[in-house]
């Protein structure tokens, strides 16, 4: 079966920088595909080439087996990381403007309902909060009833409540059997929304697979978190695999009981101990030695 989107040997070079350095992958229809990586990893450049906004230095992107063209532009919905809208238009007028650019799509009122913009439809789009504006931008991306939806760091800068609302919206869109391409540096977002992820660093894809599959492949350990002030200097002599963070010490172990006993024997206070499974951020740290959000 032909994938809905296929990226072949993609390169994008700027003077002195290889922003995208030989990236290849394909995305089957109907899934949420996540492109993860820290700032500067090449995610946005890759997604903008996939969107047909930016020309690659080399390589190609194919949509339903064809080079990016008129059909792609008619069937793709895009939410950029940063977008300004035309001034002095209300939410409804803005949606009417974009709906007018497509031959086919949803009724504007349906999009308003889908993105919970009913109460904001008559408001000047400059007077929307960050979360409301993201909902409007998502609504714009949906006016043509896209087969494939690109979301470039859609929740960056939103407060936790707005992020959660936005995730619910994306899940409802996903339920309509749309293909979603999501870039994010929030691992909780990727774990919640993505069926398949690729982790990028310095223009390369360094890991690819489902979130659970990747974690199972790379980790057999659980992580113990102890606040830094609770971890005495003497405990550093213990035979433990520790990772230093500014506020905490993390200990990776496959034998939880033995590690706990060792800590108790060394009189390490365990009152604020937290045990958690590894997540995608840990995976990124494991793969690159860098934190995901740097």
């Amino acid at each position: 079966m032909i994938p809905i989107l296929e990226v072949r040997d993609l390169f994008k070079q700027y003077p002195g920088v290889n922003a995208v350095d030989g990236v290849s992958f394909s995305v089957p229809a109907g899934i949420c595909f996540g492109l993860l990586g820290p700032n500067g990893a090449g995610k946005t450049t890759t997604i903008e080439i996939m969107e047909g906004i930016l020309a690659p230095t080399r390589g190609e992107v194919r949509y339903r087996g064809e080079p990016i063209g008129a059909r792609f532009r008619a069937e793709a919905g895009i939410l950029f990381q940063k977008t300004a809208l035309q001034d002095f238009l209300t939410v409804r007028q803005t949606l009417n403007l974009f709906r007018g650019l497509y031959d086919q799509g949803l009724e504007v009122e349906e999009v308003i309902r889908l993105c919970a913009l009913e109460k904001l439809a008559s408001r000047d789009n400059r007077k929307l909060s960050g979360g409301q504006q993201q909902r409007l931008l998502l609504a714009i991306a949906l006016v043509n009833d896209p087969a494939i939806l690109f979301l470039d760091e859609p929740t960056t800068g939103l407060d936790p409540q707005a992020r959660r609302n936005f995730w619910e919206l994306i899940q409802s869109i996903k339920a309509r059997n749309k293909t979603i391409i999501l870039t994010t540096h929030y691992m909780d977002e990727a774990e919640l929304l993505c069926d398949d992820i690729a982790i990028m660093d310095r223009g390369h894809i360094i890991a690819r697979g489902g979130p659970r599959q990747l974690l199972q492949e790379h980790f057999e350990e659980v992580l113990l978190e102890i606040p830094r002030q609770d971890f005495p200097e003497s405990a550093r002599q213990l035979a433990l695999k520790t990772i230093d963070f500014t506020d905490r010490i993390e200990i990776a172990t496959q034998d939880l009981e033995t590690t706990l006993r060792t800590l108790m024997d060394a009189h390490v206070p365990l009152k604020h101990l937290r045990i958690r499974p590894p997540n995608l951020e840990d995976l990124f740290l494991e793969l690159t030695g860098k934190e995901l959000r740097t």
Partner: protein
Amino acid sequence: MMRRLLAIWHARNLEFVRDRSTLIFTLLLPVMLIVGMSFVFGGPARPLFKVGVLASRIDKQAHPFLKERYVDFVPIASENDGLPKLTHQQIDLLLDLRGTPRYWVNTDSPKGYIVERLLLVAAPSAQRQPVTGAAIRYVDWLFPGILGMNMMFSCLFGVGYVVLRYRKSGFLKRLHATPLTAFEFLTAQVLSRLCLILFVTGILYVGISAIIHFHCAGSVALLLLVAVLGALSMIALGLIIAAAISSEELVGGLLNLLTWPMMLVSGIWFSLEGSPRWVQWGAHIFPLTHVLDAARGIMLDGAGISQIAPNLLYLAVTAFVFLVLGAWSFRWRIE
């Protein structure tokens, strides 16, 4: 406070100096303006009066009057060329020294009255020829210029800055992600601005006509055609400027580079009669010159389509060429 102020001052200076194209342009524009003004207004002291002489060239020895100081004598090919200029007060007197001296003077012109006194001292027997037809007031002559100037600013700045703002804010990038083509976008911008300009110019035309009691001698429909083609040409010119540039200062500078010469040499405020030939010829590069020539022809002389056809053709061709160039060089986003 001073430290913060200096920090901002320094950063802004760096930004300005590092924007090389704008810096060069900022230095170049005043120099070009000075050079341009010196050509238009330069030379010895400006003459007080302008007298048209029916001759192919001025021979100072032909008559003592031609040696008068502070009078600019300009050769005029025929009576037909000279009389409209006299009526419009582009010249103060029209003189024919071939045979018995005779002259035409605009009785409504104060300068015409004085230069006539000077002539009669040097040539007491010169025959006076009355100018027929209504005299053109300066305000009537200025009226098309004011309308044209308003159109020019609205066309160039209204479109140029809007497109630049859209590009800088990322709105163009968002539009690029839709099936919209550059040609469609630019055409929509042109048509939107065209409608606005026609509406505003129409209101100004009706309002000012009522205030100054102006009556158009020619066809208003033809005048509308001139306005449409002129606006199209100047809007498309503005689009070329904004097609690919992302610096507001550079766009502002380039627009000034276009508007200032047009303000000076397109004949908004005064006639270029008497200025160097190449300045008069060069002025016809600008669409506004053709708009004003055609509009004055219709509004003041009742010119028909055949008389202003060259102006209409120039405006139509430049509108098309500028729009194609604008679409070709158009960039959706900042590279």
